[in-house]
């Protein structure tokens, strides 16, 4: 049931990518979809009443959440940072060449 939140977030991002014409809004949609996937990974690793898998002094941990999806998501965040920087750089270059972010006006590819 709680996974529905992630599905809704993914749908919002997909709507943003498919319907919007502004290039910056498309980039934001891709970022939102990425976070929806990160969220569902973290939820898969959750265990009821579990706590963060961090060892600390004078405390015994009996019930902890799964740390593996957290490591995967940390890597995914790093890769997301790099792809976001690439997308923004491409958007900036397109803006200087065409003077607009509207994807229906960016169509002088031939020649």
């Amino acid at each position, binding site marked *: 049931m709680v996974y529905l939140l992630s599905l809704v977030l993914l749908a919002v991002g997909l709507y943003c990518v498919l319907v919007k014409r502004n290039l910056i809004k498309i980039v934001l949609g891709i970022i939102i979809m990425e976070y929806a996937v990160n969220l569902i990974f973290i939820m898969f690793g959750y265990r009821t009443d579990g706590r*963060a898998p*961090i*060892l*600390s*002094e004078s405390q015994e941990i009996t019930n902890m959440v799964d740390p593996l999806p957290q490591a995967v998501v*940390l890597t995914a965040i*790093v890769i997301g*940072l790099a792809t976001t*920087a690439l997308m*923004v*750089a491409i958007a*900036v*270059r397109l803006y*200087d060449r065409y003077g607009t972010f509207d994807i229906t006006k960016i169509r002088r590819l031939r020649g």
Partner: protein
Amino acid sequence: MTETGKGMTLIVKTVTRITVGFILVYGIYIVLHGHLSPGGGFAGGLIIALSFIHLMLAFGKDVALKRVSESVADLFESIGALLFLCIAVIGFAAGYFLLNFFADKGAPFALFSAGTIPLYNIAISLKVGAGLFAVFVALVLLKTRSKGTE
């Protein structure tokens, strides 16, 4: 930091002048405690880079680039990657790749107990911090350079 008239308003500049040092020190703390508490090279390097980006947003690009120019950021990024590789290769001297060669067993919750792991964290923080700052500088310079040619 001199008043150049570029950048944001006086309020933002004053707040930045107070907080930017604390942000930098917090980033260094996260890096050095990476083997004991959550955080580590990536998160700490990100916070270090954000302190310089904060400086650039408040005071304009010239002030930040005078402290860390784009060639210096490039140099630190390369040093970070090479430092990581060197420490990993030194492991061969005692046994195998990525060997943690001067920690016998390690003591939990002691700061100087983890052998080479803090050194790896420092290398990663150099790479990530300089790399993120270089990405930001590249986007800013791309924008101003293209504005200059038109």
